[in-house]
């Protein structure tokens, strides 16, 4: 019972807009990956009959392609403030962000580590965001040229294939780590329920995103965990 001293009070980390945008993004990404996988490697050719033949796979890939374009809009429309905070954090880099990575490697493999004070997003999440944004731009724009080659010069279509490949190749490699950290890794697992429900345990938010948590305490949005009433008698 290592959590016995940790109060079970929850705080809101993500808006509904973010939760939906993130879920649609994730589902569309994997659907797109699976529907194109037999084209990527012959090892998965058995997926063709499952997906309704090459034509079925192609149709599904196009449907999910359109869905894949929507999360940015959803996030922007339903949580404009959150969207711009995200953008601002992505371009803000300080010494603590670099310190984060040395501690992160220790944490990843289960060694002793200390928390480096982070803002709303930690440096790893920021790197993930930046890579995924770049990959999504590559994938979406090159996807257009591949879907509608008749409207583009031949050279653009040919380079589109390369960029599509680079985009999802890099994207999936990073996503493996992203999913592992949230679903499997024990220290960051509350992040997974957080991205589904929007809420995370206050103690966890305070540990992982100290600067953000303290700001919200100052604003009076979050409980101050140093307050004796949150410290259990034990």
């Amino acid at each position: 019972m290592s959590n016995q001293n940790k109060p079970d009070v929850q705080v809101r980390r993500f808006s509904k807009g973010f939760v939906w945008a993130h879920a649609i993004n994730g589902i569309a990404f994997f659907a797109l990956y699976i529907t194109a996988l037999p084209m990527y490697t012959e090892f998965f050719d058995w997926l063709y009959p499952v997906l309704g033949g090459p034509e079925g796979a192609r149709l599904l890939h196009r449907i999910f392609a359109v869905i894949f374009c929507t999360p940015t809009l959803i996030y922007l429309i339903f949580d404009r403030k959150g969207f711009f905070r995200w953008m601002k954090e992505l371009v803000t880099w300080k010494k603590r962000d670099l310190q984060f990575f040395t501690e992160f490697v220790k944490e990843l493999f289960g060694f002793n580590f200390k928390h480096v004070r982070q803002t709303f997003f930690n440096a790893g999440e920021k790197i993930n965001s930046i890579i995924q944004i770049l990959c999504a731009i590559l994938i979406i724009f090159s996807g257009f040229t591949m879907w509608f080659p008749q409207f583009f010069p031949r050279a653009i279509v040919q380079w589109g294939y390369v960029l599509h490949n680079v985009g999802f190749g890099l994207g999936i490699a990073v996503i493996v780590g992203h999913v592992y950290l949230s679903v499997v890794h024990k220290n960051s697992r509350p992040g997974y329920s957080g991205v589904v429900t929007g809420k995370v345990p206050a103690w966890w938010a305070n540990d992982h995103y100290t600067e953000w948590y303290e700001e919200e305490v100052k604003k009076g949005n979050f409980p101050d965990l140093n307050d004796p009433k949150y410290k259990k008698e034990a």
Partner: protein
Amino acid sequence: MTKYIKYVDVTKCDGCRACMVACKNWNDLPADPQDFQGSVQSHPKVSADTWNVMQYIEHENGKGDLEYLFRHSACFHCTDAACEKVCPENAISYSKYGTVVIDQDKCVGCGYCVQNCPFEVISLKEYVDKNGDKYRKSQKCTMCTDRLEEGLQPACVTTCHTGSLEFGEESAMIKKAEQRVKEMKDRFPNAQVYNPQGVGGTHTIYVLAEKPSVYGLPENPKVPTSAVIWKDYAQPIGKMMIGATTMAVVGAFVTNNIISKRKALKEDRGEDHE
């Protein structure tokens, strides 16, 4: 094995189009009706149902004369074929004759070959199956590989009555082409052999009366640089990257378990001594 290639001397061609008819006939290709092209040419270029097309080009030769140029156009059967490189299903391969052929059972109709062929001679054809569902397959000239297997020459070559088309041993054909270019330099100063090295040479070589561009052919065709980066670098590196991150998280999972077990063990021992 002796390497055989198709030889096309455009200056001997009289534009009779028997090659087009023979191709349709042998390969059982349906009629492909077109609107009037503005000249005697029947189709703008090769298509999924018309694997070779006679080009009729009205060319002003720079001396104020009009040249009426003909060219039998079809797949070049590159030694280094871009279509074969980009095909994601390995549906396109080199036959033992060096001809480039499409396995219709493996083709998924993605059209990557169509977009990457430096000569633009591959087309997608749409079919309807018995359930009314549409599907697509890539189509192009096969160099009558099925005839070659029977010891026959390509249908277009067999039918050509002017000797414009020949099928023969590579070095002999190249020699013949070079000789022919020498013979007609007075009449056609720009005459040349077209056997582009950017695609490793082709299995259809031409004696052209004019520069390739006059015939709408690329002067220096090659496998697109994008196709090389895509297939030789981006794809294998991408597969390595997902392998690397997967190994990293598996490693992390294992070390996490080991370390937390050790910690638990230490704690247990600590308690025992109390």
